[in-house]
């Protein structure tokens, strides 16, 4: 069994009287691509926010490779090796594609900006203003900004949102390939079950801020309560 690289323990996030996360504990092992699924409002994005340092949490701890990073801000967590992408495309519209990937590489003291752009088919767009490239290209750019510097853990919040089915599957294949090639552990939130089942080695199902079930995709997808409540009968 490989070592735990990311560990959240007893994570609780309260908005007024509503608990978006209720005593959630999650352990992600090195090399794993873990899917985080559940209906809207289950707390998936909140969990990603809490782990990445975007949202404060009321209780709990976050550890990266055994080091407690609960007190670190988003920037410090990124430099410690925990990167993320966003549900909505989150890039620098007025910079060129190349400028911003190099900017991210410089922050991470990495020299793999060119390699990342090649891998994500962004190299031909290097001199284009990011706001002017297609939506699909912007999604890959968002991913490139997170991947550059080879983080140890990558948190992805709906990377395929807004993409066509073909684009989503291409992205899924690319993600699986890059995660293996660059040894990046991935925790991915995604509504597109084709993407989830194509790349994930394990799944965590969230419901109303609590973990309902965890396990390999082939087991999770046949659990009656999961099929009925979250996945829909068509995927079973």
């Amino acid at each position, binding site marked *: 069994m490989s070592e735990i690289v990311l560990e959240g323990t007893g994570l609780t996030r309260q908005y007024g009287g509503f608990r978006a996360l209720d005593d959630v504990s999650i352990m992600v092992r090195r090399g794993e691509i873990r899917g985080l699924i559940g209906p809207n409002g289950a707390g998936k994005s909140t969990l990603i926010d809490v782990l*990445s340092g975007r949202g404060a949490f009321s209780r709990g701890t976050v550890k990266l490779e055994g080091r407690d990073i609960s007190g670190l801000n*988003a*920037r410090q967590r*990124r430099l410690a090796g925990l990167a993320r992408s966003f549900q909505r495309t989150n*890039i620098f519209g*007025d910079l060129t594609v190349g400028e*911003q990937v190099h*900017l*991210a590489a410089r922050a991470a003291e990495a020299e793999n900006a060119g390699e990342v752009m090649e891998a994500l088919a962004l190299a031909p767009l290097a001199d284009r203003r990011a706001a002017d490239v297609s939506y699909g290209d912007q999604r890959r750019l968002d991913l490139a900004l*997170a991947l550059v510097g080879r983080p140890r853990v990558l948190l992805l919040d709906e990377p395929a949102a807004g993409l066509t089915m073909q684009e989503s599957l291409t992205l899924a294949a690319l993600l699986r390939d890059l995660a293996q090639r660059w040894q990046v552990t991935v925790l991915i939130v995604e509504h597109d079950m084709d993407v989830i089942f194509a790349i994930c080695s394990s799944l965590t199902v969230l419901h109303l801020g609590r973990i309902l079930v965890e396990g390999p995709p082939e087991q999770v997808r046949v659990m009656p309560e999961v099929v009925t409540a979250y996945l829909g009968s068509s995927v079973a």
Partner: protein
Amino acid sequence: MKMRVLLPLLFAAAGALLPGLVGSTLLMTLLTQAVINAMLATGVGFMVRQNGMVSFGHAGFFGLAAYIVALCTTNHVVTAEFAVLLAVALPMLLAFLLGLAILRIAGVAFSMLTLAVAQSFYELMLRWRELANGDDGMAAELPPRLFGAGIAVFQTPESMFLVCWAALMVVLAGLWLLSRSHFGTLTIAIRENEERARFIGYETLLPRALVYALSAGIAALAGVMFALYNAFVTPDVLYWSLSGEALVMAVIGGTKAIWGPALGAVIFFLFKDVAGDLTEHWPAIIGGTLIVVTVLLPRGASGSLLALVERLGVRR
């Protein structure tokens, strides 16, 4: 040589020839004042361009610098040369420290805070008569020589125009180089998406405070030139209307290009003079023109010029 380098050099040289070509002292006086205002507008525009934030208080740094020159030279606190350096450095330091506190506040609230700070300087100079002679203003007792040049160089329109023009060209060249550096790219990234900048690993407050300090320093340099040229300052140089005018200049010129606000200042100053000859209600003409420019040329005069140059196929 590329056009993007050749054109500015030609422009800078053409400006330097103006005193020899313009026979009217009145027009040279006007042009000198326009270049001083261009420097102030460049500071305001740089803040908008790099930080995406609007300051209504740059007259505070302009006027503070002018008063530092006047107070230091009149009271013989330090040498005039040191007073000039102090007049640029102190507003920069003040803006940096102030920026660390107020740049966390976004939008209109930030603009109002800058306005409040500048107005507090205005009130200070207005009411502290023992220090600065209130609304009567005060003269700057400048020495016969400054930085090795006779003081007349700084007070004669033709020569002062050249001093101000050279300073403006150096500032514009410096800002252009800065905009092409890592710092320039980083500050544009922060302007575009501060949260993402943090998530790729950057501290975001410090670069924004440095931009604010730099823009304040440029406004302060304009204030120094104003004080040297006029050798007299009144609280009007700290008043909010000057900050507003500088912002109007930046809007007219556009902030996409670093030189846009400076162009806007020259247009504004000359237009104000022409409109002032036509009617005492010239601010109404300026206001109407601003509305037309904002609607028809949202990128300002510089943006429209660049678009025209691109359309003509000239490599920038």
